[in-house]
């Protein structure tokens, strides 16, 4: 395969034993390894021979004889078990992959979806592979997911919570921010304002008001 589809990244380095090198900086760990798995993008096999699938805490990777690639869970919009012989001659895992840049745009006819199939040599293990994919996908929510479970970052508290000190730190931070927004003028500022406009703090000329009232009457 000359060019990898959108959302699929080439993996060219392997460790001494030929296995996947994880990105420890991203807390990546290998959770499940399945040898003897073929891969198709659309209808096109990546390599004629089978390779090894690695399910890590961050991505699904496949290393074949000469090629290798990885797809992060954030790029996998869905994965499924497919057993219908009419769709593919062997039971397989069917996935849809989008490049992370296109995710979440929505309503865009141009979103490029890649269909990727993982075909285990041992189809008895299909459910096991599916479960590992589910478990590891769940470890990768979008970075902007709004997790409101513990109330962090929320500014709605009821009386009881405030008495019990819930969110005290958040509220203190919020008050500091409000304080910073309030710029109280200094005595020097008043002098300057008055020198620019001596009548600034005088009462409105009552004569004008009287005129208006008599005109209106």
């Amino acid at each position, binding site marked *: 395969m000359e060019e990898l589809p959108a959302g699929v990244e080439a993996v060219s380095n392997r460790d001494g034993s030929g296995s996947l090198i994880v990105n420890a900086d991203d807390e990546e760990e290998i959770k499940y390894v399945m040898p003897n798995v073929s891969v198709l993008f659309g209808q096109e096999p990546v390599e004629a021979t089978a390779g090894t699938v690695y399910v890590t805490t961050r991505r699904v990777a496949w290393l074949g004889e000469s090629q290798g690639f990885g797809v992060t869970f954030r790029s996998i919009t869905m994965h499924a078990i497919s057993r219908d012989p009419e769709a593919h001659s062997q039971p397989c895992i069917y996935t849809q992959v989008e490049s992370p840049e296109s995710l979440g*745009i929505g309503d865009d006819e141009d979103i490029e979806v890649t269909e990727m199939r993982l075909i285990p040599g041992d189809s008895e293990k299909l459910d096991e592979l599916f479960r590992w994919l589910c478990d590891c996908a769940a470890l990768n929510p979008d970075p902007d997911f709004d997790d409101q479970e513990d109330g962090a970052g929320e500014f709605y508290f009821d009386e009881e919570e405030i008495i019990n000190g819930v969110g005290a730190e958040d509220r203190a931070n919020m008050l500091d921010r409000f304080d910073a927004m309030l710029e109280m003028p200094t005595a020097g500022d008043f002098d300057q304002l008055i020198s620019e406009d001596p009548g600034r703090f005088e009462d409105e000329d009552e004569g004008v008001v009287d005129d208006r009232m008599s005109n209106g009457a």
Partner: protein
Amino acid sequence: MLFYSYFKTLVGQQVTVELKNDLAITGSLHSVDQYLNIKLENTRVVDEGKYPHMMSVKNCFIRGSVVRYVQLPAGGVEVDILHDATRREARGT
């Protein structure tokens, strides 16, 4: 976490999940997690013309962040309970 709690009450019911890439999958709701990742069983693709291979799929896992809408069975919505839960969520209790 209102939607998470709410979707949990729909487990076992028929729902249609519409993805942001316009794929719509109908199936029985197997499970949902706190990120609104959804697992469906006995699935069926609404628009089979677009993804013919999806027809063969029986169990699937859908990433929560790609879901646009979830169509619910009319009988699966307990309006009073949902109202109450919404009010409680708004009060933060």
